[in-house]
């Protein structure tokens, strides 16, 4: 526990603690605002009445000078004071001169990439370090073109866009923020898992045998041709297995959601969703069933 305190109070880790507090606070705040709005709507108020509920009697628009300019000025002063105090209280870390011959254990990427480094436990570098970051950036950019629900533009609501918000919160809170925190606070020497009360022992060895998917479930050597085809089938079937079941339901095909979305948008959305969901699925397979690779080929492993 003593060492855990040392880790979270390390100068470079303090921002992560601050981020965690802010993310929790703003999640609470946006939920509070959304629930307030949803309640007002349930009582039969219009969108505008629900959003502007507290402003009855005030003009809807205000002059930027002085109202907004004053606020910007105050925030700028506040941020400056905060940065000054932070910089007086805590010194930026500076370790010894770079030395390619002395590898620290653990070696960690900058903190905001630790979520990706954490995924290296579950995926090879070409997926965790190259493919997934690109899918994340492209997927984020695609959001406005996939989520064509016209409701919930410009105000907080949960009830009017439950799907979009749950997918985003899952990705942001669990697959990004939580992974960054795990990578920072729970991963010690050898990138082994350490609970807060455990000492980061550099000599710790964890006996763990991970075996490939086809060995585990079919008793087929993953390096054999048969193992190759089993792995290929498992990976190739994952996407249709996520994407197509809803399409088989006539009620889904007739639904307003699907009608508006159209087949192309739906397939883009579903394939991005399948990629996103593959991450926790592989993590669960690895953690609970000790599965190493799903698909082993001579060029790459998945």
């Amino acid at each position, binding site marked *: 526990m003593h060492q855990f305190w040392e880790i979270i109070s390390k100068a470079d880790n303090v921002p992560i603690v601050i981020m965690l507090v802010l993310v929790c606070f703003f999640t609470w705040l946006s939920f509070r605002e959304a629930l307030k709005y949803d309640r007002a709507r349930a009582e039969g108020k219009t969108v505008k009445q629900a959003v502007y509920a507290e402003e009855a009697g005030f003009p809807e628009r*205000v002059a930027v000078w002085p*109202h907004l300019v004053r606020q910007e000025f105050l925030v700028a002063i506040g941020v400056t004071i905060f940065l000054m105090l932070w910089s007086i209280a805590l010194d930026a870390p500076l370790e010894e*001169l770079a030395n390619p011959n002395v590898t620290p254990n653990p070696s960690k990427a900058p903190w905001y990439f630790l979520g990706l480094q954490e995924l290296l436990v579950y995926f090879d570098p070409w997926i965790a370090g*190259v493919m997934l970051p690109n899918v994340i950036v492209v997927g984020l950019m695609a959001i406005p073109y996939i989520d064509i629900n016209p409701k919930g*533009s410009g105000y907080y*609501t949960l009830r009017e866009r439950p799907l979009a918000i749950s997918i985003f919160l899952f990705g942001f809170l669990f697959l990004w923020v939580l992974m960054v925190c795990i990578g920072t606070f729970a991963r010690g020497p050898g990138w082994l898992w350490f609970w807060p009360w455990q000492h980061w022992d550099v000599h710790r060895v964890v006996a763990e045998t991970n075996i490939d998917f086809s060995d585990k479930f079919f008793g087929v050597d993953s390096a054999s041709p048969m193992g190759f085809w089993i792995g290929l089938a498992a990976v190739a079937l994952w996407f249709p297995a996520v994407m197509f079941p809803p399409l088989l339901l006539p009620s889904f095909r007739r639904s307003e959601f699907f009608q508006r979305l159209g087949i192309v948008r739906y397939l883009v959305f579903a394939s991005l969703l399948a990629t996103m969901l593959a991450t926790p699925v592989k993590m669960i397979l690895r953690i609970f069933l000790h599965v190493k690779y799903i698909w082993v080929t001579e060029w790459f492993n998945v």
Partner: protein
Amino acid sequence: MDVDALKKEVTTSQLWRSVMRHDLEDNPRTRVLKVMSNLFMHLHPVRIPRFGLYLKHTWCMGGITFFLFLVLTVTGTLLMFYYHPVKEAAYADIKYLEFDVPFGMLLRNMHRWAAHAMVISVWLHMYRVFMTGSYKPPREFNWVVGVLLLTLTMLLSFTGYLLTDDQLGFWAVTVGTNMARATPLLGHEGPFGDKLGMTPYNDIRFAMLGGSQVAGNALLRAYIWHCIALPLIVAVFISIHFWRVRKDGGISAPQ
């Protein structure tokens, strides 16, 4: 001496009037002119919806991100006066900043903490924009620009990490750039990389580092990306981002 007469003399002079286009009486007309006739103020509209002022609605995270970018530009420029991006000098320059330069430690601290804070504030800005659905039409493209800015912010921070030339920066950047080895087709350890003839001496990681190791060339490249190329690119995208906020109808509001 008649102060009012003097004031009138000054404020009606050609010199004064060439700079200040309007008087400063507090009335609705000058409130508009203060925004319209000033380069920096005219980024704003003249009027905004009242809830655009509410911190519980905007979290002020976009504004804070921009302010931190300005803080980083100023502190970064000052740091550049004391820093040589060569292996022989870089680490010693940081020590010099910490122990000899007046307020050098404070300067370096502010730059580092503002950088971390900017990464956090840009994430939170994205979080807010998502939660209020502000990427919806007609603001789709500005969300795309925002995602690019978020990526560029992390790249700015990443390139800055190496510049201290200490163990922390060296290994963080080594771990980070080792990923590039595994790039499909373009990395020597990536899928099909060897089929394209990739080796540690010609693959994408070599192009990023200017070598097969994180060494002098990598330091110089990181420095140029960090201090010149990325800030310029970010400045262009920030301009587009702000301009589009106005063109797309200002802060998002329920219709």
